[in-house]
Structure formats: structure tokens, C-alpha cells
């Protein structure tokens, strides 16, 4: 495995399976009374968050703490960054504090890649702009595998705001590596121009794809990133691309519904679908801690140069 985890595309199939298998063994740690392992004692993990995030940050924090690492949380608000410090100077500061790993979330695509050139420790991308969010893709693949078994040949449909979604891009790359067949469904305005080069199919008709799907992953409509009108109205979007009860009924009986969160209930996903037994949305959060433990262990648990 590489020293950093910046893109899901950097992972070979063996790497991805190693992370998933490691997570499978670590899942039992969350079920026992002492949820802690001594493995990363004395290692320091810095959570460097330039964008608001609750679930990803606390997920990484919980993962690092369960492995006994020391965790330093650094959020851009109220820090030296709001006084105008550059990313490089922030990185050098963290370096001087002896960070063994930096978990970075940044609004600019490519920020983790730059950071990796400036620090000696491992860099873990926790979401950069509209680029990638590899640990989300890993936890999604882990959640699917726990429900469905091996992913080879599985039909996975990702629906919604693909354009602004780093989750979609990471998932397409990782699921492709793992041998699943991915179909993206979105309004043409919410697909990136380069989507033709991605290892996946594209469709504009959700109703046609649903009956053939083993997994339907709904994406959040990222209004905060929308500075233009990508669709006429929320109501129309919801009618054409939302997963409501009727569409849910068209899915195969054992197909599952996923959502990376946070959800807009009633917009891309109906409340009763989100709360159904075939929804993995709550599991995904628990699996997030487990998969991040696996990633931190594999990056930091052995010898580091």
C-alpha cells in the first residue's frame, strides 16, 4: 500500500481487499466492552479540517482513539488559518508537532495532494472539494460487502448530484477496482463533463435502472456548492430522481439503499425509505469508524520511514 491515501484510484484490488478484510476483523472491537487496542500508542494523528464536517471528523477521531493514537483536532475556524496562514505554513507547523498522520478535509480539490509533498507523515484525504473522499468509498464498499458478500459483478447505481460529489467519484473508482458494475443516474446538468472517461455507465432514467440494481446509493443535493440553476425546482428534481416509496418497490427484494449523509429527507430520499430495514444508512456510520481504523492501522501500524 502507498504511504498516503489520497485517491481511491491509488488502491490496487489487493490493497482494497486488505483494507476491507482488516476492517472485518476490527469490526468486533466496536462490539466488545473495552473498545480499544494499544496498536498506535505514541502515534499522533492530526485532524486538519478546513470545511465543516461532523461525521467524518468524529469518525476519524473515534477510529484513532480506539487504536490509542493521540489525536489533535485542528479546524480552520478560529485558528491561524482565519488569520491568513497558508496551507504550507500550517503543514510545517503540524510537521513540527510531530504528526505521524494528517487527516485533511479541504474545500479545494487537490489540497491533500499538495500537503503530501510537505509533510513526512501519511496524508489521508477526508474529502477535497469535488474531487475525492476515499474512506467514504471504502466504508460504502465495506457496508455493501457485509450485506451482499463479494462485490464482483454486482450492479450498483449511484443517483443524484454526481457533479459536486467526491463520494461518487471515489466510489466509481473503488467499485470498479473491486469488479462491480456501476451506473450513474443524474440530470445531465449534474454530471461532470469528463464522466465519459470514468469506468461506469451513465443513465438519465432512474426507473429503468432500479429493477436491475443490487445497491442504490442516493447522493445529497449539495445546495451549498450550487451557484447556478442545475434543475428547475426541488420538486421536479425529487419527482424525477428522488427515491420514494413507489420507486423503492421497483427494486429487487434483496437490494439495499445507501446514502453517505447528511440526508435531505423528502428531497433525494423519502423518510420511510431511509428508515427501512434495507437501508444501510445507520450501519454506514458505524462501519465508517471501523474502516478508518483499518486505514490508520495499515498506514501507521507498521514501520514508517
Amino acid at each position, binding site marked *: 500500500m502507498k504511504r498516503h491515501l489520497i485517491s481511491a484510484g491509488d488502491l490496487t484490488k489487493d490493497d482494497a481487499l486488505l483494507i476491507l478484510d482488516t476492517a472485518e476483523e476490527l469490526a468486533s472491537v466496536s462490539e466488545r466492552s473495552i473498545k*480499544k*487496542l*494499544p496498536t498506535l500508542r505514541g502515534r499522533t494523528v492530526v485532524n486538519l479540517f478546513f470545511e465543516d464536517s461532523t461525521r467524518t471528523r468524529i469518525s476519524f477521531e473515534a477510529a484513532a482513539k480506539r487504536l490509542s493514537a493521540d489525536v489533535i483536532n485542528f479546524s480552520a475556524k478560529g485558528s491561524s488559518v482565519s488569520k491568513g496562514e497558508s496551507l504550507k505554513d500550517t503543514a510545517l507547523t503540524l510537521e513540527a508537532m510531530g504528526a505521524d498522520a494528517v487527516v485533511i478535509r479541504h474545500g479545494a480539490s487537490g489540497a491533500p495532494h499538495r500537503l503530501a509533498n510537505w509533510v513526512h507523515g501519511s496524508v489521508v484525504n477526508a474529502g477535497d472539494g469535488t474531487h475525492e473522499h476515499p474512506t467514504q468509498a471504502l466504508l460504502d464498499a465495506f457496508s455493501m460487502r457485509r450485506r451482499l458478500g463479494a462485490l464482483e459483478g454486482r450492479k450498483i447505481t449511484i443517483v443524484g448530484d454526481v457533479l459536486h460529489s467526491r463520494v461518487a467519484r471515489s466510489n466509481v473508482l473503488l467499485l470498479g477496482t473491486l469488479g462491480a458494475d456501476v451506473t450513474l443516474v443524474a440530470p445531465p446538468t449534474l454530471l461532470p463533463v469528463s464522466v465519459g472517461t470514468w469506468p461506469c455507465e451513465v443513465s438519465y432514467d432512474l426507473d429503468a435502472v432500479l429493477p436491475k440494481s443490487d445497491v442504490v446509493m442516493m447522493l445529497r443535493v449539495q445546495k451549498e456548492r450550487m451557484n447556478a440553476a442545475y434543475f428547475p425546482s426541488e420538486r421536479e428534481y425529487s419527482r424525477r430522481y428522488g427515491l420514494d416509496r413507489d420507486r423503492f418497490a421497483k427494486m429487487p427484494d434483496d437490494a439495499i439503499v445507501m446514502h453517505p449523509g447528511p440526508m435531505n429527507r423528502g428531497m433525494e430520499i423519502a423518510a420511510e425509505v431511509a428508515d427501512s430495514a434495507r437501508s444501510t444508512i445507520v450501519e454506514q456510520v458505524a462501519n465508517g469508524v471501523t474502516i478508518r481504523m483499518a486505514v490508520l492501522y*495499515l*498506514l*501507521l501500524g*507498521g514501520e*514508517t520511514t
Partner: protein
Amino acid sequence: MSDSRAVLEAPDIHRALTRIAHEILERTKGADDVVLLGIPTRGATLARRLGDRVEQFEGVKIPVGSVDITMYRDDLRLRPARPLGHTELPPDGIDGKVVVLVDDVLYSGRTVRAALDALNDLGRPTAVQLATLVDRGHRELPIRADYVGKNLPTAKSEKVKVYLQEIDGRDAVVLVKGGAR
């Protein structure tokens, strides 16, 4: 090329495990509260075999599981991160039980130390005992086995390899002579 010789063949391993199973029954007075926990990979296989023997002899089914010690090793930083083994506790856990740890080779004692640490996080057994197929000496920690299949005097440059039917397709313990060192 280093030369190697088999020090235990399949029948020897069979007899050693039979004896250990009897000793466990004797020492624990019928193995009522005993849980066998093997250290992956080959310790877990040996634990299952011991469990089967005890059931044959006394008709009691004792819980068998495995405890992976990778995350508790003291030499993690000397090598790249290793893949994890499988930990599987019996449904009733290990609280209040007599845990018999099972491993294939007892050498420095560091694996057993890690296993004791792991047990500490998994529950509170009333007692912990240690069974090993081969004790090759050279302890680096104050640890000894309660049940030993064979005491095997070795040089530190030598290697002891255990082969088991379930994993390797044959049963044997092989002593591999070390190179010039």
C-alpha cells in the same frame, strides 16, 4: 541451502495432542469451565483438535475460539503493517472461565505476552494456562507452558516449522538448520 529434518511426524503429533487433552482434563478436573483459545493461524487449528479430543474422551463439549494478537505485538514497528488474524470468542465469552491458550511453537514468549494483553481487553478469566505443541526454549520473558507436546532443544539460528493437515496438507514439525550466522 539449509538442511532440515522432521522432528515430529503425524503419529507423534497425534499422540502429543492426545496426551495434552488428557492433561487438560486431569489438571482442570473435567474441563468444566475451560475455554480453548488458539493463536492464529496454527494455534487456532490445534485448539480445535484439542477440543475434539476432549469431547471424544469425556463427552463434554468445551468452547473453542481464537484470539489474534497482531494488534498487541511489541514488534509491529519493525515491519510493514501485517494483515490481521481472526479473533472469535465463544458466545459465553471468557469471564470466569479457565482459558487455555494454544500455540504451535513457544519461543521467546513474546507472542504469549501479547495474548495475555489481548485477553485483558476481552474479559476476566479466573485463570490462564498455556498449551504448546513445541517448546523450543530461548525465552525472553518469564513465561512457561503448562502443557507441552515436545521439548525441543534448538539453536537460535535454527527455525521450527509446524505443518498441519488442515492448512498445509500434512502433519509434521520440521527443524530447519540455520545458515552461517
